[in-house]
Every structure is written in structure tokens, then in C-alpha cells.
């Protein structure tokens, strides 16, 4: 009586698990990024393809080495390093030197992620850490833009934001929406990014409150500035379509690991990013502020999480009636 059967597994409930896995999530993100990646290669040519390949390979190798040194299992197969490699290239200008890409990729993985303890522990978006590092190291390269293959007539190689800020030129929206503009590799076609993101939102792989609150904040603030001085400040739609806002709001701010876990927290986070973006663009010295806005807000995520703890069932006012 009572003999134990060693083949029975004794783990704690629940005994069934959903099909979701980190790997599936990462693969979905990769797939939804692909259309924008392919379009950018078409737009800017073979050099960009090489940049992607080098960046992804460097990220994977850095991750493998770092994980090996830290004697941790898993991680390499989850696919997150591939995403970092893709996103890094998407926020770089098309003529960026290959050795710079390698450097950026190493920094993204090692400083942006592994130093914190690897996937799940990093505070800042790894690709943005790499981008920020490159912006500081190669200021000249980072602001040299190329002319895409499909281009809107009369627009020079400068990005719409630089055109707005330094020359007072406004780029037509349709060009920005469909990607017939200059800019970073991946930020040139809003429509492809939006399609991919919608799929991720439906799968719940993107916390939708983040992009939504970024867009609303940027639109509202943009409108306010525009009303104050329409000749100096562009209207809200320009803000939404220009620069890295789409890729930033949809794919970088929504990086699971570096965004809040509470619903209200996501809204705070998004509003914060939105405010910073408009302020940096219009009042700061830089044409592009999305990257810094996200990195800045990343730092506040632990605080935001703590401040937006949901009301626990059966506590507070709601149960007293």
C-alpha cells in the first residue's frame, strides 16, 4: 500500500499550459517586421541587406558568447537577439559603415542586455542602446541620409524632420505614409509597420495602450503647438508620420521587457514618451527625439509599475456597496 511510482511527474498546478511561448512571440515579431525590412532593402539597395545580415549575425554571436560566459542555458534560441539585430539596422541611416553596425550590435547585446542579466532583466531597449551609442560615436554618419529609390519629386535626401526644422520644407503625407521619403532604414514606411503591429496587437503581443497613448499625446500636443503658430510648427499628422515615431511607438516602446506590466502604467509610459517626443522635436536641438524619449521612459518603468499597481480584488472602495 502507498508505494510510490517514480515515473509520475509531481509538479505543482496548473497541469496544463497555454501554447504561448517566448519563442513564438519573438518569431511573430520577426515575421511582422519582415515586410518593412524587405521594403527598406528595395529602397536603399544591397548595402542595407548586408547591414541586416551583419547586424543579426553579430547579435547572435555576442549573445552566444555572453551566455556562455555567464554559464546560462536557453536564451539563444528565443529569437530575441534577431529582433535586436533587425531593429538596430532599422534605426540607422542607409549608408552606415559596416564596422559601425558590428560595434552597435555588440553594444546592444552586451551593454544593452547581457550586463543586466540577459533577456527579461534589461531595463533599456537593447537596440536603442546600440543606436544611442553609435549616435555618440559617429555623429557625422548617423545624420547622413541617402535618397531612396522611390522618392517624392523635389524632396532632397534630408529627412522630413530635418527639412521641417532646418529648411522649413514640409514633406507630403502620402509620401511619408507609403515610404517614399528619406530617413532611417526602417522608418520610411508607416503603412508596413502599422500592418505588422495590428497583427501583433490582435495576438496580444503588443501592449496596445502604449502606441495608442503615444499617438494621442503626440497628436494633441502637436495640434496645440500648430494652433499657436501654424507657420512654425507642423500639424499633428506630420508628427505622427515623420521620423522614427511609427517604428518607435509600435516596435520599440512596446518591447515587452522594457515596458510597464500594468495597464495604467502603459498609458503613463506612452503619454510620457509622447510628450518628450514633441518637446524634443520642437523645442530641443535635435530633429529626432523618439529614441531618447523611449530610453528616458524605460528608466522609469519600475517606478511606473509600482505607482500603478491595480486595485486588488476586495480592497479599496469598490467593494463597499
Amino acid at each position: 500500500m502507498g508505494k510510490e511510482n517514480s515515473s509520475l511527474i509531481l509538479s505543482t498546478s496548473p497541469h496544463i499550459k497555454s501554447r504561448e511561448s517566448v519563442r513564438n512571440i519573438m518569431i511573430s515579431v520577426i515575421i511582422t517586421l519582415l515586410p518593412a525590412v524587405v521594403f527598406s532593402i528595395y529602397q536603399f539597395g544591397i548595402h542595407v541587406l548586408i547591414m541586416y545580415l551583419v547586424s543579426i549575425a553579430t547579435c547572435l554571436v555576442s549573445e552566444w558568447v555572453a551566455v556562455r560566459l555567464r554559464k546560462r542555458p536557453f536564451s539563444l534560441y528565443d529569437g530575441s537577439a534577431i529582433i535586436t539585430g533587425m531593429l538596430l539596422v532599422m534605426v540607422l541611416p542607409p549608408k552606415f559603415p559596416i564596422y559601425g553596425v558590428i560595434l552597435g550590435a555588440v553594444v546592444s547585446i552586451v551593454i544593452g542586455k547581457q550586463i543586466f542579466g540577459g533577456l527579461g532583466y534589461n531595463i533599456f531597449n537593447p537596440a536603442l542602446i546600440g543606436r544611442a551609442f553609435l549616435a555618440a560615436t559617429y555623429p557625422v554618419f548617423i545624420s547622413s541620409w541617402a535618397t531612396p529609390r522611390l522618392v517624392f519629386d523635389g524632396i532632397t535626401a534630408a529627412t522630413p524632420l530635418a527639412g521641417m526644422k532646418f529648411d522649413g520644407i514640409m514633406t507630403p503625407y502620402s509620401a511619408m505614409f507609403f515610404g517614399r521619403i528619406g530617413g532611417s532604414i526602417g522608418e520610411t514606411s508607416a503603412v508596413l509597420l502599422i500592418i505588422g503591429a495590428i497583427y501583433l496587437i490582435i495576438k496580444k503581443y503588443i501592449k496596445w495602450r502604449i502606441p495608442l497613448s503615444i499617438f494621442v499625446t503626440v497628436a494633441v500636443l502637436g495640434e496645440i503647438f500648430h494652433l499657436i503658430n501654424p507657420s512654425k510648427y507642423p500639424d499633428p499628422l506630420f508628427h505622427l508620420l515623420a521620423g522614427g515615431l511609427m517604428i518607435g511607438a509600435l516596435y520599440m516602446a512596446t518591447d515587452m521587457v522594457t515596458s510597464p506590466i500594468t495597464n495604467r502604467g502603459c498609458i503613463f509610459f506612452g503619454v510620457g514618451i509622447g510628450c518628450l517626443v514633441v518637446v524634443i522635436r520642437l523645442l530641443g536641438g535635435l530633429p529626432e527625439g523618439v529614441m531618447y524619449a523611449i530610453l528616458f521612459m524605460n528608466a522609469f518603468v519600475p517606478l511606473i509599475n509600482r505607482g500603478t499597481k491595480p486595485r486588488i480584488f476586495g480592497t479599496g472602495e469598490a467593494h463597499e456597496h
Partner: protein
Amino acid sequence: MNLFTFKGGVHPPYRKEHAKDSQIEIAAVPDQLVVPLVQHIGAPCAPAVEAGGTVKEGQVIGQSDAFVSAPIHAPVSGKVKRIERALHPLGQKVLSVFIEPDGADEKEYLKPLGDTIDQLSSDDMKKRVMEAGIVGLGGATFPSHVKFSPPKDKPIEVLIINGCECEPYLTADYRLMLEKPGDIILGAQMIGKILGAKEIVVAVEDNKPDAFKKFKESDAGKGIRYVLTHTKYPQGGEKMLIKAVLKREVPSGGLPMDVGVVVSNVGTALAVCEAVRDGKPLIDRVLTITGNGIKKPGNYIAKIGTPVSSIIEQSGGTVGTIGKLIVGGPMMGIAQSSYDVPVIKGTSGILLLQDEKYMKEGHLPCIKCSFCVQVCPTQLLPSRLSILAEAEKWELMEQFGVDDCIECGSCSYVCPSKRPIVQLIKTAKLKVRDIKARENK
């Protein structure tokens, strides 16, 4: 959109089709029954019989003087072989009475009180519930007479009869509702009278419309309200059910009676009916045997003390390599180390799952996807709790409401990193309790 629902929760595949259409059969009486003397929350029973003696079906074999306890009765007539410690489905070894049935079917039941509720006094019925050893049969196994004795300052307005059976795979309550709706209604009215409740509500998940219909047909103007709740796990959790049906929130750390409610499972209502009307103590129960690891899934009425292995045998034996033997449902049940554990009062199901890779897989760090936060029915931050538990920050976990966790498992179910959140939370609860006990010294 069904309005009777709550916030959070998950939709696991229900897998009820395995056993849903099998009528309740009587489980064979095994050669030996092992009846543990702890089958409820509260004081354990002391043996009331001696090894070597004989017992009649329904005779008391274990009892306690404590109020929060429930007597235990002999499930069959036979001989007491020995009284010693044996493996219990909760994992420890506890004192148990080993009975060898003699097949004589000699009964020693309580005196039937009849079913004319108008003529039955509330106190008599409550006493009967106690004498019959009835406990919550939904799995909680809290002694029912205690639950039915709220303090004077907490009058009970509503009795909710829980027919949700939200655990996947399990169909025992469903079969009961189809096969014995009249008895359940009668039991519900008895409990309602014991409590002095103004209203009785029977709640069924909307994936069981036929059970709902059966109830309505059998009711015949008894003034009971029937509601179809949204099918979502853990809809059958007391707090979630009260929220769904009455929009009331049981306060943190409190009990349903704090909001004027008592929730009883349909199986408990049936046991009350049988104890009052027929004088039958709680010596058997209906359970589901199911999963992809059993040849013929089904529903059985089994004597308490029947080894799980005996019911497996009657169901045609196992199929494939069994990875897990679970007593209870897949979301909250307990994995067993042996096929010899007995059926106890709280055993709602026996689940056999074939070995699959995921059962042995390791977990990854939290990727802050927030899936767990979205599904937690008590609005905790399971991600945060699991990380704090790994860092052994027990006190901080208390601030994050670890004690409010109902251990429903929704968070672990959805976690893409496959983190053992419930396990970490269970450990933390014990640690928090230890720390508090030390402080109070």
C-alpha cells in the same frame, strides 16, 4: 456578451467531451478501502473503532470534539483490518482506517427526517449536516455545518448554489445536474432554510445549457433564481462567482458571509438532501475519471476510501505513458506520486495525462509580457510576485497582496516563459505565515 462575469480569467480548452456524455455509474467496491481520518479543513478525527472490529455501512469511524471538524463514517460494512498511516491525496501520510468489505451491506444510517422542508427545523437540519460529516464537495472540504453557522451580525441574504464546474475536463457536477436536478434543488432549499437566506440562486456556466434547462424544468415554482454565467475559468471560484452574480466583492482576507452570501457546490446540496431526507451520511461521492491517459473516461459514484487504481481498472486501464496522475482538475488539482491514494470527500476528479514534453520543461525569466497581469482574477501582479519570490523578499510580497491569491493558476497557464508562479506563491504564503507567527510570539 454575458453580464454574469468577472474581470480576468482564462479560456483553457475545456476537454469536457471526454466524459460529458457518460452516465454516472457505480464504482466497484474494492477488496480494501483506506479511509483517511483527515478529509476536511479543521481538526483531524480520532479513530472511533479498533483494529479487528467490524463496522456497518454508515457507522462513525472517526470523530473529533472540535467544532471545525466533520465526523467520518464507514463507507461499507466489513472488518477493520488496521489503523495506520497511509498516503493521502494531499501528499502526506495520515492516520487511516483500513476496511475489508464483507459484502453484507449492513447499514447503520441516521434517522430519515423526510423532505417536507416546512416541517423541518433549521437547527435539526444543521445538526444533521454535522452528523452526516458533510464538507464542501467542490474541493475546499470546509465542514458545511460551520459554513452554515454564520455569526449573528452577519446575516445571510443569498445562497448561491455553484454549478459552474469551471475546471476543464471535469464533468461530475454536470452529470449530477442532469441526473438529479430535483434532489439538488431540494438540498438547496434545505440549506437556504438553515441559513435563513432570502434568495437562492443557482449558477451554471453557459456552456452547460442542458443542465440549466433541466433545473428550470424540475423547479416547479420553488422561487429559485437560475443564472447562466459566462464560461470562463475560474468562474466557479467563490469570490468570482459572487462578483459575477451579485456584483459584490468579498473583502480581501474576508469570507463570502461578509457580503451576506454563502456559496455551496451542487454536490454538497445533493449530500445535504440525502442526509436530511434519507439519513445517509457522506460515504460516497460522484467524481470524473478522465484525460487522454484513461481508456474509458466516465463519471462514477465511488465509496470514500476506494483506491484510485481500482477506478482506473474499472475504466479500462491507462493508455500510453502516464506523465501525471492528478486528483482534482487540471488547473488546481494535485499531482500524485502513487496510484494507491484513496478517494476522499474532496475528490472531484481523477485526471490521467499522458507524458508530454511540456511537463518537464524548464522556465525562462519573466519577459514582462503582462499576460499574467491581464488574467489574474484578483488583480494581482503575478509577474512581480514570482520575481519577488525568487529573490526571497517575502515581506514585500505581502504588500503585493500574496495572501489574496486564490491559487487559480490562470497566471501560470498563460505565461509564455512557463514560470511556476503558483508554486512560488504557495511557498511564499507559507513563509509569510511563518514570519507572522514568529512576530506574534
